[in-house]
């Protein structure tokens, strides 16, 4: 049954097809406005609209709406300040943008639209963008001293080659785990929701046949309550994963901004 396939919801569909073109670098490429694009555009409009609405009638004593925006803003501001230090302000725009975008995509994907963050291509792009910024700042600030990142101080000289290798590999794994964490959490959560929702339908269909199938009704009720509970959990996960993405971005930036002093 295709409709009950838990993976089917992650299918990319073309809404507006622009046909196939030959791009100079990528070769044959299919251009289309997909459901993933649409969901991302909605998330973008939602973030911009929300922040515009929140800051439209600014007062010294914030109203209900303004304090929601201020809480989100203040949370990321505190975060970057406490992890990176007094230079955290410089990186605040990037961290806040990524946080709000991921949060909007997670929450909207859970409630309304296609879940963009369950596409590995999207989360990998976010992860690569973060790590590219980290590497760029590392080289701009310290030049070749950036490689001191892989050489922790106070390590016995005998152990140094092993430690450097481990540090280097763990640095390379950062963008991968950053992307896979968000992707896996979103994919896993939505698959689990779909599987339990499928149980409700299947057990309900069994009960409709009467006879012994009537025992399916308590099972269906149990599955339905599980769906409700999982939805609540997924709301928490949607926020938490955006927050964790922001925290890890801060930690990775801190490694190169304050290179050498303090670990």
């Amino acid at each position, binding site marked *: 049954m295709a409709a009950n396939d838990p*993976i089917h919801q992650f299918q990319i569909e073309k809404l507006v097809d622009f046909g196939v073109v030959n791009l100079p670098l990528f070769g044959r490429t299919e251009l289309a406005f997909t459901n993933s694009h649409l969901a991302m555009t909605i998330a973008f409009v939602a973030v911009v609209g929300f922040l515009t609405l929140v800051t439209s009638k600014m007062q010294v004593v914030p109203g209900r709406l303004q304090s929601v925006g201020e809480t989100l803003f203040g949370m990321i501001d505190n*975060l970057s300040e406490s992890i990176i230090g007094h230079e955290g302000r410089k990186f605040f725009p990037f961290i806040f943008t990524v946080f709000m975008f991921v949060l909007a995509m997670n929450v909207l994907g859970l409630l309304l639209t296609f879940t963009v963050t369950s596409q590995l291509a999207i989360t990998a792009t976010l992860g690569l963008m973060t790590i590219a910024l980290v590497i760029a700042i590392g080289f701009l600030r310290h030049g070749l001293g950036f490689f001191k990142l892989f050489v922790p101080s106070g390590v016995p000289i005998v152990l140094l080659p092993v430690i450097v290798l481990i540090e280097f590999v763990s640095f390379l794994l950062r963008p991968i*785990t950053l992307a*896979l*964490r968000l*992707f*896996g*959490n979103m*994919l*896993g959560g939505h698959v689990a929701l779909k599987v339990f929702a499928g149980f409700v339908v299947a057990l309900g269909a069994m009960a409709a046949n009467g006879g012994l199938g009537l025992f399916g009704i308590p099972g269906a009720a149990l599955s339905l309550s599980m769906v409700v509970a999982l939805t609540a959990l997924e709301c928490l996960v949607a926020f*938490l*994963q955006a*927050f*964790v993405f922001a*925290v*890890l971005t801060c*930690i990775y930036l801190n490694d190169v901004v304050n290179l050498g002093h303090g670990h």
Partner: protein
Amino acid sequence: MELDAAKQIGAGLATLGMIGAGVGVGNIFGSFLTGALRNPSAAASQIGNLFVGAALAEALGILAFVLGILLKYG
């Protein structure tokens, strides 16, 4: 057909990696509660560390899950 069966079995075995993630996340939250009950005034400041630790431990379980999905549908 045998390849298909092997894929299914492999996907099932890959999910065993989640045991480790379960142990890790449980350990983090358990330790947090132990510490928080001893010194409740310091607990609030460690919530951020708690969730980052949980996310780091969970990522390895997610890796197992992604491998399972790749084996099953890849």
